[in-house]
């Protein structure tokens, strides 16, 4: 008889704690940041599509699914390093096909040549171009990510990518001005 009581008591306690834990796991659930969002946060958000995906989020999804980590040209080495850290894989050099001038740029519309076709507006992933049909268009420089996507659709080639000029605001101390000597 006493053994039955013991089993019943232990059973009740187990059920109680089980219920408590179950409640706690729902009530105090910690929202884990999914890997895709973490990857997306590392990408430069230019939405340029140079990786072959229609935006940064899709590429983040692809990387999470096992795509190569070295396809983000605007992010460059730094981004590859960060993704490699996150994914626990080896750092790879930037994809050969992207080897190019990676200085930050913004698009610029040569206004006298613009015919107002609105093609670039449709191509811009971040709505950084303003204009209307048969009206001259222009770029909102502060919003432009320099993704290059508006250049190809322009029928009169009036869009060019211009390197952001160096000012005292964005100037960086040149590491080379401090000659660092290697000690043998």
């Amino acid at each position, binding site marked *: 008889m006493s053994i039955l009581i013991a089993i019943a008591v232990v059973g009740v306690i187990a059920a109680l704690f089980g219920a408590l834990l179950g409640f706690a796991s729902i009530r105090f659930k910690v929202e884990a940041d999914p890997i895709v969002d973490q990857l*997306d946060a590392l990408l430069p958000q230019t939405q340029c599509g140079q990786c072959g995906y229609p935006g940064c989020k899709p590429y983040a999804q692809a990387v999470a699914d096992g795509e190569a980590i070295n396809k983000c040209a605007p992010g460059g080495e730094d981004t590859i390093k960060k993704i490699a850290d996150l994914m626990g894989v080896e750092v790879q050099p930037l994809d050969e096909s992207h080897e190019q001038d990676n200085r930050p740029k913004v698009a610029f519309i040569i206004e006298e*040549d613009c015919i107002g076709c609105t093609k670039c507006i449709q191509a811009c992933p971040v709505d950084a171009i303003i204009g209307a049909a048969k009206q001259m268009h222009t770029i909102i420089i502060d919003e432009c990510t320099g993704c290059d996507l508006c250049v190809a659709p322009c029928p009169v080639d009036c869009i060019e990518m211009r390197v952001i000029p160096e000012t005292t605001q964005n100037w960086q101390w040149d590491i080379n001005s*401090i*000659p660092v000597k290697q000690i043998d």
Partner: protein
Amino acid sequence: MQSILERITSGKFWSFHGGIHPPEQKALTATKAIRTLPLPKQLIVPLQQHIGGEGDLLVNVGDKVLKGQPLTLASNPMALPIHAPTSGIITAIKKSVIAHPSGLSELCLFIDVDGKDTWIKRNKNQDYQQLSSSEIIKKIADAGISGMGGAGFPTHIKTNSAANIDFLIINGAECEPYITADDLLMTEQSQAIVDGINILKQVIAPKNILIAIEDNKPNAIKAMEIATKGLAHIHVCVVPTKYPTGGEKQLIKVLTGKEVPSGSLPINCGIIMQNVATCFAISQAVINDTPLIERVVTVTGQALDTPQNAWVLLGTTIDFLLSQFSAQPLESGKQPVIMGGPMMGFGVLSEQVPIIKTSNCILIPSKQEMPSAFDRQSKEVECIRCGECAVVCPSQLLPQELQWSAKAKDYPQLEKLNLRDCIDCGACAYVCPSQIPLVQYYRIAKAEIRQQQILDIKAEKAKVRFEARKLRLEKEKIAREEKQKKAAAARKAAMNKATPEAANAKSAVAAALARVKAKKAGTTTAAAPESSKSENNVEDNTQKSQVAAAIARAKAKREQKNQTKDRGNNANTTEDKPPQDSAIESTADNTKSVASKPDDKKAKIAAEIAKAKAKKEAKSAPSITQSTDEASTEAPIPATQSDNSQADDKKAKIAAAIAKAKAKKLAKSTQANQSTDLEVTSGNADVDANNTTLTKSEKKAAIKPSHEPNISDNIGSSNTDPSNTDSSNKTQNQADDKKAKIAAAIAKAKAKKLAKSANENTSNNANNNTQKELT
């Protein structure tokens, strides 16, 4: 607070961590009075001379300006105006090298000094006690006063704080070696400085005012004590000499024992600090209505013959200063010029750099004095982990650790090590036995972190915009689909009603489609070498077109739904569209006759188009009246000159199509077979000049002759010469007609291919086709 004041009055102070005692070198200039300089020939006044934005320009090149006249207008609270330092003429507004370690250029005003030094009208006001706080703050802002100790924060913002202030600290510590500008200013202008302090007191209403002066400035201390005699609320505090006592947080610690927390401002602890030179500038601005146009600059260093402090107009270039202080010109390029002190200053890359509101010292060291400044080669060796840097760091950081992380670009680690609390004082680099330029590494890292933060913000913004756009496109797509569905349903309902209108519409569409077919058949046969007038061909055409018409009618019902699409898919869209439209408008029962006599029909269509065009041209382009006249005269005579007008019309379109295709192709790539294309174009362009002109004016935007010099050359040349022969020579017209048709076929083929893809292969194919059809 009482205990703090007691301590201060008894001459006891707290001490901050670390600090160094570098050789002072102040004796070079400390004993000589502030000198006034002759007016320079030219002033270069940068628009931005402080932290914050630049104002909007108020003057233009060629304007005459008077001394003290505002040159810019502050458009936001952080911006400050600048003023003309003397009277003269603005000769240029352009970019010039500014006082910044990068040696970058910023917008500057170039003023040619007229030597008269004529003041603008000033409202001197001795009675500042009558002014309200907001009036005083406005005066300070309008005078363009920024902190003159080095950072250059706009003074009116610092002053305009509602917080309860315990201490107003006037910083006359001037701890950096060599510099004696504040020392001399206090000695000579103590009364004006006290006036400035009283004005600040009126605005800020602090409980106590402390003037901090290091004990190596006996003259300044004496002068300030005399000037503040009888003012119980002002205490002159003689603090022990140590570098960097003049640092804001360090001086607060020394005077009050309070430590301003990391990332916080002194104002949150109830403390405001102002430089003595700023106080002087405030008294000048409020009492004398004199904007900030000159300041005391210590021009020192053993390479100079007569180092001395001087009143220097803002915008005076360094080479003018050097010419005043040195008998023989200095070796340009070899002699280092340091702006600011030896600890926190930076090397100036050009001697055209102007003095600005924050420049307090120009240091020209001799080689014995500062060999490191001459030696471009760094003597840096490995860190020996002696820990001296951590001992002297006034911010209690770990410079050695920071250095490693900075070299490794490990920014998160630098954040953890509180790099942002580094005040760039350079004490660590000064004591480093391995001569590591520690502070340079920190500056690089700080700039990069700042840049990274800006990029992060930008990326976040881009992400938001991208997501928003995606959402919007999705919505638009759904809305469009719904609309299309509705429209399709409505169309279906209308068709099924079987009303006479519906039947009419049906037959009209069918007729139009049939005509398209017929015309296509006609064009293909016309492209054959035989003339389209030959009897056999006409009969052939008739048969073919009848068959085509029958097929077309059968298809008509199915096609009427996506009729527009079909039309678009046709290669010869540009040619077909106008005939279709005009035919639909005209008659529906024409079908048979039109189909059996394609040439006749073509002529009619052409005539109509020509008429329509003529109307349009007459409206839009009166400049090309000649061609318009021709088109309109030719159009109404279909019987005799039908071939002519038709050919002309067609040719115009062909030319347009070719030009368009060309423009696109050429824009994309210049290819090996370009030359053959060009030949074809020129051949076609030669056919009819008038129509090319029409086309040109119509398609001005699309063709963009300025972008394609080849095409424009062809068009241009054809515009001039063959136009005379065209109207007179009919036989040539026949030949031209043929050519035009061939060209049409080529253009069509090309247009189609190019539309799909503009790679080399396709263009080669197009050219092959060209050759085939030509042979």
